[in-house]
């Protein structure tokens, strides 16, 4: 079990893990508020200024799984894996334009989730339920994949075991995470995000300077990767094959539409203290996208370093073990593992807020008080994390990866109701619900093929596009047509001024 352990790397790893564990519990007292209220536990009291939000949102969106999966894809196929770069470029103009409006209306009306906003705007609790369940469903596999990130680095430390014992370190890490998230709420990942993000920046800067220096420069790295792809053949290479161009573009657009409506992304944004803090973050957050692009290059460095792995997800850990001294490999692995804790915590909080406000409260117990909401949400955050852990312990990882792929397709189906709703009430709630339902079914159907779940579908021979984008186009068309027929009589709880910033009516 531990006979092959890399002790130096493990000591460094455990030391950093212990540090963030202490921070997670201490965070309860940071910018203290009444943690028995849901907006305090679940949104940090909306007290995070531009700086804290930058660390929190960056730490929340650029997850450990990303650090493993993007280089894995670049290692496997080359240029195509780089779609993460245009994707993370176009999200920030969208953040700048639309999300200050969402922050403003949620702040003014006391909304905590996308479902709250949709209910207020359209007066339709079934649409609220659809948005809420989609968010929870899409978040579950995402949390599970964070665990995959932790497990990969623990394996790279040399830990091995039979059966359930092989998951022992992961289980311990996750129980600790669950406890301090329960106690401190969003304050815990916000505080840990400082450590996580600084560690990731350090490891990336070291990697892009030291590894090329050892491998003969970037020219040699790209040459070695080109050779490896030439040998491998198929749709691989340092540029896109003609047939990959439309999938590349549509994957970037579709992923960007989905990202900020995931519950964990919204939780990060809505916890900001002002709409100006969000706008300033739209300017500063691309720093993480640059880091993500550089992390993608690690996949190419893997080829130059002669790393051969059967599972591409092992390429980053193996590269670090080979290129760096043990203590720095331990540091980098800790960065990845801590990088999993922040998003996993925020995701479980986002899902818990959503379940409490938009599933339990409207359908089971409408008279809930703020205190009862906080109790339920804390409990839900534990249940959600337990569910993710059980998936990793008992179901093949492939299941979580496929499920996550579908999660993105489903999440986009909420885009029309939420984002269009920030600008107009022309669409009716029932029409949006019908569009959502069609989008969910069509998106899932397109992804299914007899052999595997796939991300893209050939609409015409010459036009292959991301399933989520095809499905949401249909979703918008149906929502628009039905809105013409079914004019909505339901009340709109918001007024135009709510979207424009200004002071809150209620806390």
């Amino acid at each position, binding site marked *: 079990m531990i006979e092959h352990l890399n002790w130096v790397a493990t000591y460094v790893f455990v030391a950093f893990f212990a540090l963030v564990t202490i921070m997670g519990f201490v965070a309860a007292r940071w910018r203290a508020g009444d943690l028995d209220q849901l907006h305090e536990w679940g949104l940090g009291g909306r007290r995070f200024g531009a700086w804290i939000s930058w660390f929190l949102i960056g730490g929340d969106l650029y997850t450990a799984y990303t650090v493993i999966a993007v280089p894995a894809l670049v290692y496997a196929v080359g240029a195509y894996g780089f779609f993460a770069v*245009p994707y993370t470029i176009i999200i920030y103009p969208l953040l700048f334009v639309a999300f200050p409006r969402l922050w403003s209306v949620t702040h003014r009306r006391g909304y905590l989730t996308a479902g709250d906003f949709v209910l207020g705007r359209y007066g339709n609790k079934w649409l609220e339920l659809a948005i809420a369940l989609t968010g929870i469903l899409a978040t579950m596999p995402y949390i599970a994949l964070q665990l995959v990130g932790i497990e990969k680095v623990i394996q790279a430390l040399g830990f091995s075991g039979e059966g359930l014992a092989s998951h022992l370190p992961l289980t311990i890490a996750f129980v600790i995470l669950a406890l301090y998230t329960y106690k401190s709420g969003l304050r815990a990942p916000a505080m840990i995000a400082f450590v996580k993000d600084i560690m990731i920046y350090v490891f990336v800067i070291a990697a892009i300077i030291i590894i090329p220096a050892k491998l003969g420069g970037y020219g040699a790295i790209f040459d070695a990767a080109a050779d490896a792809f030439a040998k491998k053949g198929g749709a691989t290479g340092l540029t896109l094959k003609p047939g990959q161009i439309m999938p590349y573009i549509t994957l970037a657009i579709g992923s960007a539409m989905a990202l900020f409506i995931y519950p964990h992304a919204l939780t990060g944004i809505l916890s900001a203290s002002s709409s100006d803090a969000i706008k300033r973050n739209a300017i500063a957050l691309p720093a993480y996208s640059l880091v993500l692009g550089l992390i993608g290059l690690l996949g190419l460095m893997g080829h130059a370093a002669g790393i051969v792995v059967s599972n591409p997800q092992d390429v980053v850990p193996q590269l670090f073990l080979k290129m760096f001294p043990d203590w720095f490999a331990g540091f980098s692995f800790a960065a990845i593992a801590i990088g999993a804790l922040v998003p996993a915590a925020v995701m479980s909080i986002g899902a818990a807020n959503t379940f409490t406000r938009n599933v339990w409260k409207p359908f089971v117990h409408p008279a809930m008080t703020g205190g009862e909401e906080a109790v339920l949400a804390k409990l839900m955050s534990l249940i959600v994390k337990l569910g993710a852990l059980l998936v990793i312990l008992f179901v093949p990882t492939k299941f979580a990866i496929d499920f996550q792929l579908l999660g993105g397709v489903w999440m986009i189906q909420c885009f029309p109701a939420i984002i269009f709703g920030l600008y107009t009430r022309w669409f009716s709630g029932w029409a949006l619900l019908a569009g959502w339902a069609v989008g969910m079914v069509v998106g899932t159907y397109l992804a299914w093929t007899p052999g595997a779940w796939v991300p893209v579908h050939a609409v015409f021979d010459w036009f292959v596009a991301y399933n989520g984008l095809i499905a949401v186009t249909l979703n918008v068309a149906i929502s628009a047509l039905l809105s013409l027929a079914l004019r909505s009589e339901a009340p709109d709880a918001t007024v135009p001024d709510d979207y424009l910033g200004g002071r809150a009516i209620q806390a």
Partner: protein
Amino acid sequence: MKYLLLLVPCVVALATPLYNTVEPQLFGFPFFFWFQLLLVPLSALFIWAAYLGERRQ
């Protein structure tokens, strides 16, 4: 003006056929890679410009 500034980085980032080449290389990087990496800080500058423009109004 604000929307135009924000649109530019999106359009360029999605104009994939324009940058899907190896040449011209820079510091050993194929164009495909260095162009997209360079576009990230440039996009931030465009958003910053939009922000300043909005404040001036």
